[in-house]
């Protein structure tokens, strides 16, 4: 008789502790999900063209953006040190960019570029990273189409060779 009640007592204990474990687990899982989701939300990097950027309006200020487009002819000017300013354009829109990163060897007019940074109150795009369209499929550039839209998309997606900050 006593052994039977003792057994049920331990059984109850076990169930209670299991319930407690599951509860603790669920709380921890939810906490983790919330932390992860808010952290992702804070650290999104958007891949935009100049049109996308204009379309986003005030959302573009402060958000991390990877802006892809073509360097407008005649728009490159050296600022002090390694800094450069130029215009990035697509079919309809133009965005003025100032970058502090050293432009890569290939950087020139009429080439596809991706700059990472954000819009600043001065109304221009402040970037600390500049990448030049990188074609590793060995195609000769097609005449009249200096930038391949698809290639640019690939570049925007690419993070290889980027310094994370």
């Amino acid at each position: 008789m006593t052994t039977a009640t003792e057994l049920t007592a331990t059984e109850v204990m076990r169930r209670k502790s299991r319930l407690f474990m599951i509860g603790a687990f669920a709380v921890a899982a939810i906490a983790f999900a919330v932390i992860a989701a808010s952290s992702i939300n804070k650290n999104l990097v958007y891949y935009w063209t100049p049109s996308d950027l204009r379309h986003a309006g005030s959302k573009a200020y402060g958000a991390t953006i990877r802006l892809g487009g073509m360097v407008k002819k005649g728009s490159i000017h050296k600022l002090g040190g390694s800094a450069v300013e130029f215009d990035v354009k697509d079919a309809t829109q133009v965005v003025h960019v100032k970058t502090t990163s050293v432009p890569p060897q290939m950087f020139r007019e009429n080439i596809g570029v991706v700059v990472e940074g954000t819009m600043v109150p001065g109304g221009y795009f402040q970037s600390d990273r500049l990448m030049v369209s990188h074609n590793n499929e060995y195609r000769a550039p097609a005449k009249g189409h200096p930038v391949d839209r698809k290639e640019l998309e690939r570049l925007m997606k690419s993070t290889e060779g980027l310094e994370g900050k």
Partner: protein
Amino acid sequence: MLAPLGKMLILASLLVSAAGALLGFAAGRTRSREALLWARRFAYAFAALMGLATLTMEYALLTHDFRVSYVEHVGSRLVPTWVTIVSLWSSLEGSILFWGFVLGIYIAVATYLTRGQYEDYQPDAIGVWLSSAAFFSFLIAGPASPFGVVANPPLDGPGPNPLLQNHVLMAIHPPFLYLGYVGMTIPFGFACAALLRGRLGHSLLKPLRASLMVPWIFQTIAIMLGGWWAYEVLGWGGYWAWDPVENASLLPWLTATAALHSIVVVERRGILKGWTVTLIQATFLLVILGTFMTRSGVFNSVHSFTQSAIGPTILAFLAASILFVVVLLAFRIDRLETEGRIEGAASREAMFLVNNLLFVLLTFTVLIGTVFPLVVEALKGKQMSVGRPYFDSMVVPIGAALLFLVGIGPALPWGRATREQLKNALLPPLFGAGLFAVIGYILNIRAPWTLVTLAFGGYAAQVTLGQMLLTVLQRTKRGESAAAAFVDGNLRRGRRRFASYIVHGAVTVAIIAIAVSSSMRQTTELAFTKGQTLRASGYDLTFLGFEQRQEPHRAVTGARFRVARDGKVVATLEPKMNQYQMMREPVGSPAVYSTAAGDLYLSLANLDVANESVFITVYAAPLVMWIWVSVILMGLGALFSLVPARRATAVQSRESVPAAAETA
């Protein structure tokens, strides 16, 4: 004609693997000895056919047979022979063929080593292995065929991606990664077999652990080699960017590491069986997910060659595998009965459990950050990525907690511990923790997480060293010499235990090196004209001028720098720009001066040969070399743990060894 020959070999391997898989599962159901024998033969046949197909491809590459589509795609008469040989895995189709080759080796070796033993599990395991083999044979035969016939073969081809020709590490990193990735198929087979049998007996733990440890070692080294390659080739001064392809290699490693720990708990306590099996299956699924991410072109990188039709095929295989695993787990996991329970919160098994939870948390963190952009793009058509701060802010605390466990876990005893025991075990290592943190502070480290990491590292270092010396101390008290006690206690009998502490020690060094090198890194951008000397991070750099040379497959422009420290010249560095044929833009090659204390890293940003001026980025970071060294040590330690301990056969071998020596 090599292309049709290769194609035939692949079709034959598809046939034998599919037949062998069916026979394996049939043998598992009916317990037919005959069916098992044939399943084994088909397993060997698959390996042989894949080996022959790979040899055929290598032969075609070396003889520049441009009638074979893959050779037309990656071959070139201009590149050095070593590049031609490694071209096998430099592009999509060849790399899948190489996958099949490695899978063949693994399946053959695993089948051979478990023949005559584990008869309960072997048939189903072979069934699972050969099912995976059949899928990859199908992939090579159809969507990713390297053996296409080229109607009008060109005289010469483009050669592989220049980034892959730029450093010899390219020859080593992929094979290691494949040996890691593909090898996870073997423990997956054992885990599925255990579920299909409804039993995970003690006897299966040995092959399960060994078959998980072998690919884990390769994977560990491969991840490090990938980081090292990025460091030596890509020129941004770092080695890890939370790039999707890097994450793809890390994810299965995390779950495999967790499983290697939980297996120990299964061995010691008979609990966590279902959990361990789940971790091993998750590892395999993450391998397939990683293959999808890196091979289908959803992420663009040096790994993802071209957009291709194999993406949907791999995705379908992933979906089928997930379904299989979930159904199997749902119906069978409760059959793996538990033999014990966790005694208390402050016990070693409880720490193993916490370790496992942290590894799973880490896996989810990385997985969510990697897959989130894919999901958004699929659902909303918007392109974005998750920035590095997400990964850093999430992973650093979990990593630090894991390092804390490296210290506290081995210090705690199995089962229930008394208050006195806990005090004696946990208090003394606080000395090591304080010591490391103070040393860090004196060396100007102020970043809070780095100091925390150092403290946890110091704690772990003291516990690990203490455990390594524990047996020696006990035995010298009994009058043995220290050397004899060390050899017998650590290298012979307690080999596995000792090896695990080598790995723990190496992990401690690795995490400290990663934390310190990343938080103390200095970046300087400098513009030089010829003969100019500028100062960066305590080094005096003098630009000596350009050096240009023409190599068969590329034109090299190097900028030579003299590096001096405290007035003494310590090195000459030559970061380069390489202009490959068939490439529009040049590819930079950084130059690194490595010492035990730290690295000086020069990367060319922009050069003007006519005006003899150059723009470089200078990175200086302490302790970087220790990352590579400690990871190699981790691999060696784990390898050492695989050498079987002699505890059980010690008495017997003492008599049989001289006899064996005489006959030999």
